[in-house]
């Protein structure tokens, strides 16, 4: 094991994950998920977040359909979709996605179709952005493991 390479990668990982918290992509719940991962379940976090991204994709599609017809928006179904998305984003620590959902819900409550369309666009953007960022993070994890190192515990406080 090349300890210099491992140390560099670990440093890179640490800086990257801290930046994700600082930029508001992730919140404390993501750290809570990381606590649940161990040698026996090394893919737990990535499995959960990818399930979340699948969820996002499906819900966004459904909500998009609900918003299609200007005269016939099913706000009840929309609200249900936003509620689910807010819930799962909260459970994985996807802070920006969750925050958009809060605004989205407000638009649903007052039946503001334009507002909902904007929020939908934003939620789509945010989850895809997060997906790219986390793929990079998991990539770094893999590089560390392949180089024979261990994933650092990062204290975000």
């Amino acid at each position, binding site marked *: 094991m090349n300890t210099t390479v491992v140390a560099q990668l670990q440093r890179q990982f640490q800086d990257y994950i801290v930046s994700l918290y600082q930029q508001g992509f992730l919140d404390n719940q993501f750290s*809570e998920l990381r606590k*649940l991962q161990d040698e026996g379940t090394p893919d*737990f976090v990535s499995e959960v977040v990818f*399930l*979340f991204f699948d969820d996002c994709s499906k819900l966004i599609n459904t909500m998009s359909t609900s918003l299609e017809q200007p005269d016939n928006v099913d706000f009840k179904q929309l609200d249900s979709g936003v509620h689910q998305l807010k819930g*799962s984003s*909260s*459970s*994985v620590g996807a802070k920006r996605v969750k925050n958009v959902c809060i605004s989205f819900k407000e638009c649903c409550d007052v039946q503001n179709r334009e507002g909902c369309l904007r929020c939908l666009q934003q939620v789509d953007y945010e989850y895809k952005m997060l997906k790219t960022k986390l793929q990079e993070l998991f990539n770094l994890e893999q590089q560390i493991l392949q180089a024979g190192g261990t994933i650092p515990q990062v204290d975000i406080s």
Partner: protein
Amino acid sequence: MSKDGGVSCLRRSEMIGIGIGELESPPLDSDQVHVLAVDDSLVDRIVIERLLRITSCKVTAVDSGWRALEFLGLDDKKAAVEFDRLKVDLIITDYCMPGMTGYELLKKIKESTSFKEVPVVIMSSENVITRIDRCLEEGAEDFLLKPVKLADVKRLKNYLTKDVKVAADGNKRKLTTPPPPPPPPLSSTSSMESSDSTVESLLSMVVDDDSLTLSPESIASPVDSPLRRREMKSPGLD
């Protein structure tokens, strides 16, 4: 997504048919707690299941109140084949679910003869006092705010290791304890409601899992649970 056998959303008859039901029935480890988790969100089910497994619980996770009733043999269908061998120590359910809410599920459980003594915990993403009160009045043991954390789940184990618990309204309720008498709790969390001897035994427990970070909440009184806040205001529970 059950490639690791994690999420079990099988019908109970199927579970018994393929032998899973067999694994759930006695003889069980007397210190292994079996939790029934109910949540319509797949992401939340995976997380709660992992949280429970990491605290050494056995978990059955289902996606609706109806499935939960079916699992418990409380549905309207034919009487449960082996329900008298079914050991459920705790039921944890989401509040907002399509079809049957967690509150409705709670009521049905408390109305049943077989499971009314089983502690039921409600989870919700919304901190609505009237909702919390309604659930507690209906007999819920606790109310967890989502997103659920490890410290929340560790605290739940306290409900399962005491013979008698003083509820928030002062009435004593006997909890189900598995025979033979359970060993000391694995969690190092201290409970606000314990008697002195229980607190002493809890405080003398060594944290069993070095790899888990103890959050401050798990040592001091957790402050983010609405129930805890209520109990802290009530006199005489220290």
